[in-house]
């Protein structure tokens, strides 16, 4: 299980160091990144709105956009910091190789003189790929997702 715990820490570290292509490579082909608008109470991504619900194609698009010098909102650039609590393994199915974990976090996104502070719980559904673990779903349940939010430009 240490492998899965280390995976979560390494995943956040890739985001915090701006290595978005390496981060995307952690997602399985059918992987999704999901920030439900109802937070932990939300059942699925289609019956209710989400703040973000991205497949790999859309994640790739976001990452490619960030690389364009004409991504105007990245002047100045955004930087992020994930502060993670130790992950708890919620399930571990040796038959399928699927592991689910929950990780409470604080997320700070800074840009120029401003910063956004968010808290919540991250839920990873990991699967085994040929070279190690891959993300089937990274779900972020924010503490107060329905409040009016400023722009969140990177990845929680």
């Amino acid at each position, binding site marked *: 299980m240490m492998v899965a715990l280390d995976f979560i820490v390494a995943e956040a570290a890739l985001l915090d160091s701006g290595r978005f292509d390496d981060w995307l490579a952690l997602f399985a082909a059918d992987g999704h990144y999901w920030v439900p608008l109802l937070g932990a109470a939300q059942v699925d991504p289609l019956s209710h709105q989400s703040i973000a619900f991205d497949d790999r194609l859309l994640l790739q698009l976001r990452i490619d956009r960030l690389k364009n010098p004409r991504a105007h909102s990245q002047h100045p650039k955004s930087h992020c910091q994930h502060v993670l609590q130790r992950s708890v393994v919620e399930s571990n199915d040796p038959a399928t190789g699927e592991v689910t974990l929950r990780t409470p976090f604080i997320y700070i996104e800074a840009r120029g003189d401003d910063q956004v502070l968010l808290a919540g719980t991250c839920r990873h559904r990991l699967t085994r790929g040929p070279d190690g673990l891959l993300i089937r779903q990274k779900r972020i349940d924010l503490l107060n997702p329905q409040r009016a939010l*400023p*722009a969140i430009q990177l990845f929680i």
Partner: protein
Amino acid sequence: MNSYRNRPEAIQALVQEDRVHRDLYLSDELFALEQERLFANTWLYVGHTSQVPNPGDYWSLELAGRPVMMVRQADGVVRVLYNRCAHKGSRLVSDESGNTGKFFRCPYHAWTYRLDGAPLALPLKAAYADTRLTECESGRGLVPLAQVEIYREFVFARISGTGPDFKTYFGEVLGAIDNMVDRSPEGRLTVGGGVLRNVMQCNWKMYLENINDTVHPMSTHESATRAAADLWQGHAADEPKPMAMEQMLPFGAGYDFFDKMGGRVFANGHSVLGVHFSIHSNYAQLPEYEAALRAAHGEQRAADILQRSPQNSVFFPSLSVKGSPQAIRVIRPLAADRTLIEAWSFRAAGAPDLLFERAMSYNRLVFSPMSVLAHDDVHLFESMQRGLRADGNEWVSLHRNFDPSELAHPTLTTNGTNELLMRNQFRAWAKYMALTDVAPV
């Protein structure tokens, strides 16, 4: 900074025929006057009746700085009341939505009111017997908004008791709501999936102008549309696209596309952008849904409804409507330099789930706090809010395609890149900022 309160001529001088003064965006005093005059004398969007489906349901919000609530009555009617106890001013409800049962009860001193706001009971009633409570405002219960109109389940209110009636105020632009509702084979919409809320450090008028700005997508959204185009490169033009691609790629259409889509302005600041076509015109067709619409409305009317997909229809000053995808934006000004934008998605009764998914997907891609596209818009609004403080030029240019003859025509169809759609908003702004009195209820 100038003082405008007692100088109506100074306010009028801020809106010239082809440009506006920066104080419209920067002045705290003008924002306070907007709350008193512009927003009090115009019809503002409150909500949709499907937000309060059952008797006793309420939905609370702030309308131009005033606490109000929509309340479903026992007889099914939706009323709009101020959310303020008649006694000392506490709000009756502090959750955004809920069900109050058969009456409201103030948590402070237990004064109670019927769902229509009429006073019901209060403790120590005998102590008021010889007072003038019943003769004054505090004895009359909850105050209703002066004017309320429910148009095809869209609820609007006006704070002032006088001014043009609802249909005169909005006129032809109401067709945009008709189109949105008529896209339901059963003629009924419900809000679905909650509301995305985005707060930005800019004046509300920058956001409202941008809804009619057809020249910004090519430069403002270049990073997103370039990334989308590159990712989709190599696919045949007629290959079905993932929904996100279908919705994002048209943003990269050129100046000519946006010019030819056309725009139409109406009295009081309203407009329809994309009278001929828009970035929403080429979504994949849904044969079964279209057959259901033909069965409901007949061949010709169904065709008319479906071929009409404007980019944005602005109900000045608080609402922007898209018929397809079925989505609206509500503009809630908070301060001279702070604006809240709400994005709501609708479900059309009798239409396939895919239509609702389109509405949610579009709102998520374009209007969410984690939008793919809006970060560049918001960055530029906030950038203008700071840039306008520069010396040497106190004016914002709205010269594109200005023609003095437009001043004589309140209703006009024009090319899509004409800044007339923005000039028209500012002319309405000046008109309603000239009204110094808010008539009593």
